[in-house]
């Protein structure tokens, strides 16, 4: 096995301790809050917010340390176990022995650093925002406790160095999302108690499907990878010692790539299956079609929770998982990933255009943007970086959008219907400014954060299509620009309906006011990040268009993300088939892969698709804005007429393609029907048997009773009678006086003693 330890960076122990403190601070905060929160001043919100502030400071500080390490071309990846900082979980005494051994530690690399900083920053501002938004809530302290544990789960997930711990935190996050989405279901005064209860159950059950897939995928890699590896070792195709199962990311990457290389670049079928299972986890958690149905309903939770779920924690976890397991994915899996992601992006965007709930629009927007990320990752190595980059920028502007929406809802006295808003621009200037900035950002306006990532995604899709033509990349290439266009349209539809025009509802307009400082500060900071977060173009000394790459691409590079793994020889080898001049070499798949790598490198620096992509994305941006202006600002085209013209199609979209109904009709009805059948069997067959046994027992019992009454009782009575007869004789001696008894006893004792002494 090649020695790759020189590729790992070593961090000093105090830095590991800082990183360990990052998840532990919210955990400790949770414990304090859940037990004593109610009795703390202000119900303890300051405690958790301050703790999260500390976490933010640590993550940002560590981010800059990571940035310093990764500024060059080399690797930056650190594992605490290599620095002697970790736990031997389920310790196994002898390494060769059978059984489970799980050394567990922290992992910190460019992706982890970026993600950790994003989670820290967004969580802190969500906490800050919540101190204003949730004021007066009946379960205020519980809310803070839960959201803190939610953050803990995400921070732990990002820092995990193995997939099992990732899975544990992943599940914890599922539980916390359940509790938080259902926050109002525990509040008897809430008027949305039923909807909240239903939504949290739906979210929990739906993501469970994906989680089960992930568990299967995990288990397959744990058990099958060493089996296959050891087989290849025996065949002499790999020169290494035999191995046992592992969950560790770096070991999984290296071993999987060795297996694939030994197989001549071909992925074994089980690895494809396992990759699909792992992708199933992403589908559930990141709300990809067809498991996206929980996410719109999750809007029943408080708005800060939505911001957390959509920006920093829940859905990002799915994409993060793809980033962590990318080397394990075969080209086939990647094609599926791209297809599912592209389809989801367009599909959700169309629904987003028809929703009137301000948070609903943002919810479908999130599904669509997640589709972008997933599709991008499916398009190959360039898309991987672009998709992860989009995850980061998306976290900034989507959290800002949600919190701004929360600010609007707060200002409008908990009114969420956009049709009742309008003209809020003057009343809520800060909110409006933040929302506008982030809308431009999500739409991909040049120089805004979203532009850099979205542009890269579209470029990656184009590039993927030219490198490796398959259904997935084709779907991505076709669907993503369309989805981008619709994104612009529905975002500006939201802006125009909410902030422009005349007030449409007198009641709402009367209440409208700017939010308190803690909410506006939070959204302002996040809007600033939404503007500059992609690339600090105002501060960068060189080209504003980022020819040297953005900060993210400097930190996260597909060539240096996975130490000891050459993606061009494994994961991307399948692409070689379609490289035009690769066939000229006429060599094996690996040769072709080398050619593909060359081509990729050219591609990366050559910037061709970038220009195309930029033109395309600017075009769709302008088309989207123009549409929105025509329909909702200038009102040239009446939206009602437009929808009327669309006819049945509009009804179909507005009802979200009837997917909820389809699930209801197939999965849920099917389950209920199965349960009914089982119930019939239980009631008629099983119970019938039991009753028969009972009847037989009863008959036996009658006989037994007769025997008992006449034979056994007769004997007992006889004994009793004899005892009574003897007792009436013995009674003559029983005077009831203690003294007499003692006299008898002593006299007896003396007699016995005398007998002994005399004989």
């Amino acid at each position: 096995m090649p020695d790759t330890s020189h590729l790992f960076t070593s961090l000093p122990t105090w830095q590991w301790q800082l990183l360990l403190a990052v998840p532990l601070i919210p955990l400790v905060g949770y414990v304090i809050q859940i037990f004593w929160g109610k009795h703390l001043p202000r119900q303890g919100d300051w405690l958790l917010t301050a703790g999260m502030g500390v976490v933010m400071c640590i993550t940002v500080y560590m981010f800059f340390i990571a940035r310093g390490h990764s500024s060059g071309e080399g690797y930056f990846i650190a594992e605490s176990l290599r620095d002697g900082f970790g736990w031997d979980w389920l310790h196994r005494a002898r390494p060769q022995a059978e059984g489970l051994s799980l050394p567990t530690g922290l992992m910190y690399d460019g992706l982890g650093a970026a993600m950790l900083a994003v989670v820290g920053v967004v969580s802190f501002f969500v906490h800050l925002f919540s101190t204003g938004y949730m004021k007066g809530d009946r379960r205020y302290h519980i809310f803070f406790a839960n959201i803190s544990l939610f953050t803990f789960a995400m921070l732990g997930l990002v820092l995990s160095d193995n997939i099992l711990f990732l899975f544990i935190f992943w599940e914890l996050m599922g539980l916390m999302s359940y509790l938080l989405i259902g926050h109002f279901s525990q509040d008897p005064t809430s008027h949305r108690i039923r909807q909240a209860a239903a939504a949290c159950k739906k979210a929990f059950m739906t993501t469970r499907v994906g989680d089960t897939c992930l568990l299967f995928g995990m288990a397959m890699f744990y058990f099958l990878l060493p089996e296959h590896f050891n087989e290849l070792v025996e065949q002499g195709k790999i020169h290494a010692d035999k191995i046992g199962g592992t969950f560790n990311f770096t070991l999984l990457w290296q071993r999987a790539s060795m297996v694939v290389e030994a197989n001549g670049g071909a992925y074994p079928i089980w690895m494809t299956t396992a990759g699909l299972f792992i992708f199933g986890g992403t589908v559930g958690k990141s709300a990809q079609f067809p498991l996206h149905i929980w996410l719109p309903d999750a809007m029943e939770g408080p708005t800060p929770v939505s911001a957390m779920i959509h920006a920093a924690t829940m859905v990002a976890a799915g994409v993060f998982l793809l980033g962590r397991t990318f080397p394990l994915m075969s080209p086939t899996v990647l094609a599926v990933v791209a297809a599912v992601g592209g389809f989801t992006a367009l599909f959700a965007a169309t629904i987003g255009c028809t929703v009137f709930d301000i948070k609903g629009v943002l919810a479908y927007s999130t599904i669509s943007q997640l589709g972008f990320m997933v599709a991008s990752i499916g398009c190959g190595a360039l898309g991987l970086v672009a998709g992860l980059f989009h995850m980061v920028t998306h976290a900034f502007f989507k959290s800002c959008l949600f919190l701004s929406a929360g600010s609007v809802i707060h200002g409008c006295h908990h009114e969420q219907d956009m049709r009742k808003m309008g003209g809020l621009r003057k009343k809520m200037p800060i909110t409006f400014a933040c929302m506008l900035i982030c809308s431009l950002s999500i739409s991909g306006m040049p120089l805004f954060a979203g532009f850099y990532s979205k542009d890269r995604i579209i470029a990656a899709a184009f590039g993927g299509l030219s490198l490796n033509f398959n259904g997935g990349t084709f779907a991505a290439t076709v669907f993503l620009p369309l989805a981008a266009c619709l994104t612009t349209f529905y975002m500006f539809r939201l802006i125009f309906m909410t902030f422009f025009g005349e007030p449409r509802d007198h009641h709402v307009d009367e209440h409208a006011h700017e939010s308190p400082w803690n909410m506006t500060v939070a959204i302002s900071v996040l809007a600033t990040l939404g503007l500059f977060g992609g690339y600090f173009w105002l501060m960068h000394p060189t080209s504003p268009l980022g020819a040297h790459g953005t900060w993210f691409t400097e930190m996260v590079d597909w060539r240096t993300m996975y130490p000891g793994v050459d993606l061009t020889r494994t994961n991307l080898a399948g692409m070689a088939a379609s490289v035009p001049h690769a066939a000229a070499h006429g060599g094996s798949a690996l040769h072709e892969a080398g050619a593909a790598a060359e081509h990729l490198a050219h591609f990366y620096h050559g910037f061709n698709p970038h220009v195309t992509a930029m033109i395309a994305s600017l075009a769709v941006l302008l088309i989207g804005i123009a549409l929105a202006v025509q329909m909702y600002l200038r009102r040239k085209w009446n939206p009602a007429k437009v929808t009327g013209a669309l006819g049945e199609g509009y009804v179909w979209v507005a009802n979200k393609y009837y997917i909820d109904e389809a699930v209801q009709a197939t999965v849920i009805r099917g389950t209920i029907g199965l349960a009914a059948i089982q119930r019939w069997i239980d009631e008629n067959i099983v119970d019938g048997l039991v009753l028969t046994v009972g009847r037989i027992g009863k008959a036996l019992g009658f006989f037994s009773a007769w025997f008992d009454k006449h034979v056994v009782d007769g004997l007992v009575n006889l004994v009793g009678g004899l005892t009574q007869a003897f007792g009436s004789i013995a009674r003559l001696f029983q005077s009831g006086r203690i003294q007499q008894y003692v006299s008898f006893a002593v006299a007896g004792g003396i007699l016995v003693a005398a007998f002994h002494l005399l004989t």
Partner: protein
Amino acid sequence: MGLSAYLTVSILLFTLGVICIISRRNVLYVLMGIEMILNASSINFAAFNRFNGGGLEGRMFVIFIIILAAAEAAVALAIVLNVFHLFHSVKPSEADLLRE
């Protein structure tokens, strides 16, 4: 002093205990007599222990006898108080409901 001296004291104490029990009519005297008898047996155990090598066995018996006496005194006193409440007398001869 030899073992026989202790045994003599012990048997005299035992006799006095028995006399105490059988000659007085108050139930409290019964309790006192029992304590004397227990003490007499304690002396026996302690003496045999001492004159048989001074190990642990005999004194363990005495310790358990003392424990037993403590438990007995508590329960017996509770019974005496109960009997007094029931029969308005502490004479054992009058608590004779079981004779019926």
